[in-house]
């Protein structure tokens, strides 16, 4: 099928690539750009591991095609830390042990990043609802909830 050139911004850098229409955004990020921080779990929109920010809003990168992203701005988990310094949200996950195997973590971070900016001092119930689209098979979520609570209370003002 006919390939098409696309140009998009990922973590502040503009990339131009030629893609096949059926290439998923998740596979584009991993295989074309080498950004393997975006994880691929279920590939049908259930697990949330592949969540990235599309123009600032969290979306499943397995439920979008790269070819649709011409002109888009994407942020992946690689866009969080700068100059070797963890983002406050990442620091909160480290401090509260909000991960075990870490497979779900990038998707959770990218889901919660804009959410905590919009929800200062959230309740535990609100956090659990906000996390409902991300599956974690290790932690029982308790530590993840604590990490989000810490980040939402103390890490505001960061993009």
């Amino acid at each position, binding site marked *: *099928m006919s390939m098409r050139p696309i140009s998009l911004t990922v973590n502040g850098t503009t990339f131009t690539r030629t893609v096949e*229409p059926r290439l998923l955004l998740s596979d584009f990020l991993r295989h074309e750009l080498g950004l393997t921080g975006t994880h691929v779990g279920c*590939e049908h929109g259930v697990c949330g591991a592949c969540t990235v920010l599309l123009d600032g809003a*969290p979306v499943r990168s397995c439920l979008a095609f790269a*070819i649709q992203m011409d002109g888009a701005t994407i942020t992946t988990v690689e866009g969080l830390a700068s100059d070797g310094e963890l983002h406050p949200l990442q620091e909160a996950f480290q401090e509260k042990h909000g991960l075990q195997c870490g497979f779900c973590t990038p998707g959770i971070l990218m889901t919660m990043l804009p959410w905590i900016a919009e929800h200062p001092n959230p309740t535990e119930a609100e956090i659990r*609802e906000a996390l409902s689209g991300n599956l974690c098979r290790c932690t029982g979520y308790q530590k993840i909830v604590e990490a989000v609570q810490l980040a939402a209370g103390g890490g505001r003002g960061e993009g």
Partner: protein
Amino acid sequence: MKPPRFAYHDPTTIEEVLDLLHLHGDEAKLLAGGQSLIPVLNMRLTSPKVLIDLGRIPMLAFIREEAGFLALGAMTRHALVERSALVAQRQPLLAEAIRQVGHPQIRNRGTIGGSLAHADPAAELPAVLLALGGSVVVQGRGAQREIAAADLFQGLFTTAIGPTELLTEVRVPVLPERTGWAFVELARRHGDFALAGVACTLTLAPDGQIAGCQLALTGVGAGPVQGSAAASSLVGKMPSATSFAEAAALVQAAVEPESDIHATAAYRRHLAGLLTERALAQALARVSRLEGGAAG
């Protein structure tokens, strides 16, 4: 778990979409938000030769108030509806239901037109459109028609929209005066597809009698199911636990749910009644609060 090959088009006008639909017929699928279509492509449950992406047609995304109804463009994303002050004010049932569609990540991509045209038997929006007596506008080459919700849904993943027509606009009547509303569903996990769900409105006359009721259910049939007998049984009665329980029994008698791995038919029928009672009670509490607010 990779989609099959397809040819991709991303037209920028409705006319181009209609031309492509005429050209490719059954071999083409329309791609709206993709939150239902891309999973089935990934699982290779369908293999369209052509995908027509509607994402580059800005005139299909809007929310505006017209005479007695809200008009929403087919490509209006759920998140936009969820955050719309106009929707919250003029049709709070839609605002409440849309927050229960999928997860936030899904609502950032999913569209109101896509959800209705897909007609999933467990989806929220078909039941809302049916309960409210809404409609959709579909555009064919040189002809436009409006399809009432009662005629739109024709069974499992099936609608009255023709193969060369495009759903362009969703019309949702605004909430009448003295009317409460509720969308109540039960899902195993917040954001999952509902095992059963109920959309309802309840209108009270000045003397407190029920002047009108609208009821529709999701998850308990091949498509959204109207609770007409239950709704009309309430009209003229005073709202009470007894009259709500009688309506719930009528709903249970009317639905024909199926068993699947998530729930048995008997449990779904039980839920249909229980959720109807809860939805009616919540709608009543809201209309009473509105009335109290107006009196104060």
